[in-house]
């Protein structure tokens, strides 16, 4: 009995200490005032969004891209008109499903399941909450449900541009790609990148490794080391594990091309460019549709044309002028349709 009391006291005090240290809520308010005063009266109630993400909001990759997108939407709409909460690090799908159901039952206007692994969870939960709108990415499948939106990234487009640039800058004619799992926007990016390299110079060797995980940072780092030992002088990769690979690239002065988020801050000397996902356009479209009464049933894509994907260059990397011109022309060509990206 004494032991039980002691244990309960410990647990109680520990949880009180921890909850005092934890943030009051995961609600995020705008970090700066909106750029301009709203010219129309704000809606009576703010539009509330909840997001479930598989990795940290500062992973410099997938989850961060959605978090940054939501911050930008909030900046534009104003903190009174737009609120969002998030649960990150939900790499266990069952936990994510519980979080999705939780958010839906709390009456959020839009619940976003940001991860293709959450598909079956969304499919199961959405019918139980017909007055809540769900969004699921990266995919095109809305499961024919009236309250599910789907969104995807045509990451092969920015990948192609990165590939063209990589082929221009590489001297050893060997390029390494470090992928996570051969699925979704990761596979699209890898295939687009490879296509871009080979379209520029078919004699190049593009080696692709998949680590089998989105989060195995140590294996991604060793994959980078292996590529470099095999002669690669330019590397690229996708998913949050690439921070390990970027470190190895920097050690060996090997160039890096990023995707999903701007990865310049991690290695300012070797990161050339990153394809950055801007989800704000898609998010705004979904919000407008929901406010007009359409709860789902549509799929969206971010690409170079609609500004959902932007190739952001590292200002500290001295990119030769011809390479810059070629890259810009490639972007324009993809937008026009004059360049077609053939995927395997």
């Amino acid at each position: 009995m004494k032991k039980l009391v002691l244990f309960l006291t410990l647990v109680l005090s520990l949880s009180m200490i921890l909850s005092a240290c934890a943030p009051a809520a995961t609600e995020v308010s705008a970090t700066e005032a909106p750029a301009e005063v709203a010219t129309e009266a704000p809606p009576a109630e703010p539009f509330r969004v909840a997001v479930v993400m598989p990795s940290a909001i500062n992973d410099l990759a997938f989850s961060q891209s959605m978090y940054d997108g939501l911050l930008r939407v909030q900046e534009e709409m104003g903190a009174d008109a737009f609120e969002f909460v998030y649960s990150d690090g939900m790499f266990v799908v069952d936990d994510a499903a519980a979080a999705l159901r939780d958010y839906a039952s709390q009456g959020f206007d839009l619940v976003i399941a940001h991860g293709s692994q959450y598909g079956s969870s969304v499919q199961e939960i959405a019918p139980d909450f017909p007055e809540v709108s769900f969004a699921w990415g990266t995919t095109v499948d809305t499961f024919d449900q009236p309250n599910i939106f789907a969104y995807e990234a045509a990451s092969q487009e920015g990948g192609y541009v990165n590939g063209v640039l990589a082929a221009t800058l590489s001297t050893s004619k060997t390029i390494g790609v470090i992928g996570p799992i051969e699925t979704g926007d990761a596979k699209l990016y890898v295939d687009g990148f490879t296509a871009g390299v080979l379209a520029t110079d078919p004699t190049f060797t593009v080696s692709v490794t998949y680590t089998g995980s989105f989060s195995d940072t140590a294996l991604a780092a060793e994959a980078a080391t292996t590529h470099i030992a095999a002669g690669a002088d330019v590397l690229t990769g996708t998913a949050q594990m690439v921070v390990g690979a970027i470190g190895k690239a920097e050690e060996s002065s090997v160039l890096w091309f990023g995707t999903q988020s701007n990865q310049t801050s991690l290695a300012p000397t070797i990161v050339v460019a990153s394809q950055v996902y801007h989800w704000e356009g898609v998010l705004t479209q979904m919000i407008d549709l929901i406010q007009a009464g359409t709860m789902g049933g549509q799929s969206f894509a971010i690409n170079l044309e609609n500004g959902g994907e932007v190739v952001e260059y590292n200002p500290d990397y001295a990119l030769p002028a011809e390479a810059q011109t070629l890259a810009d022309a490639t972007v324009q060509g993809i937008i026009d349709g004059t360049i077609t990206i053939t995927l395997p």
Partner: protein
Amino acid sequence: MISELFTTTVLIGVLASGIRLATPYLYAAIGETFGQRSGVLNLGVEGQMLLGAFAAFYVTLTTGSLWLGVLAALIVGALMGLAMAFVTVNLHAQQGISGIGFYLFGLGLSDLLFQKMLGTVETVKGFTKIHIPVLSDIPGIGEIFFSQTVLVYLAFALVPVSWFVLNKTTLGLKIRAVGENPDAADSLGVSVARVRYFTVILGGTLSGIAGASLSIALLNVFQQNMTSGLGFIAVALVYFGAWRPWGVMAGALLFSMVNSLQLWIQVLGIPIPSDIAVMMPYVLTILVLVVTVSRVRGPSALTKPFEREA
């Protein structure tokens, strides 16, 4: 294509990468071996590693001292070990479940601290490779064995030391006795609680250093969930190694070498589907286990809380 595998570059690459990949497994698994030999199963290794990794990274980042970082990881790991020891020895909790609880705690707390105190992924100047004079100039072997960071050397030095402690010292005898027959040990005056406290705290300390080896030696970065299941594989390696330090080292090396081999297979473009390549280290480990495990028995008192019979 396959012939490209049998070149010196690949061989050196596989061995050197294998040794680096094996290091965190080695620290964590050796620590867990001590705990399990004394009868305590600790599934919270992963949580201890993550907190140790963060502590080492943060202290190194703010103070600039690598060894202070290692010390921080050591202390954090020891504290986690202390908590686990208290829960299993004094509170007689179900060891598997409490271990998972510590895992979740370590995972969540390391991420929370990371987000509040750092906010973004950044790199740190970690341990650099130490080239042992003369030996590191030997072609091939020099690069593999004698040009690694100090934490890698320490991990492998830990193996003979652990073997010696477990098999040739009185302390080791006590540990093994407590793990095999705690009642008999208790009747002979060995404090079961004290021995288990020691081994579990030691295990926590080594897990903390395993985390530090990732964040300030091998990867020089900290990220949420960067261990990605490493701790659980380390626990499995204890079983694989038959609760013996040399066996654990063999398991860690086998797993890691095959992992680096499959990376080379993918890099060289050998047409094996990436999913199969990624499976290889796990499949091979299971195969070896099937062949060898029949003769091995674990500590009899493993996972059983000890209560003195009145």
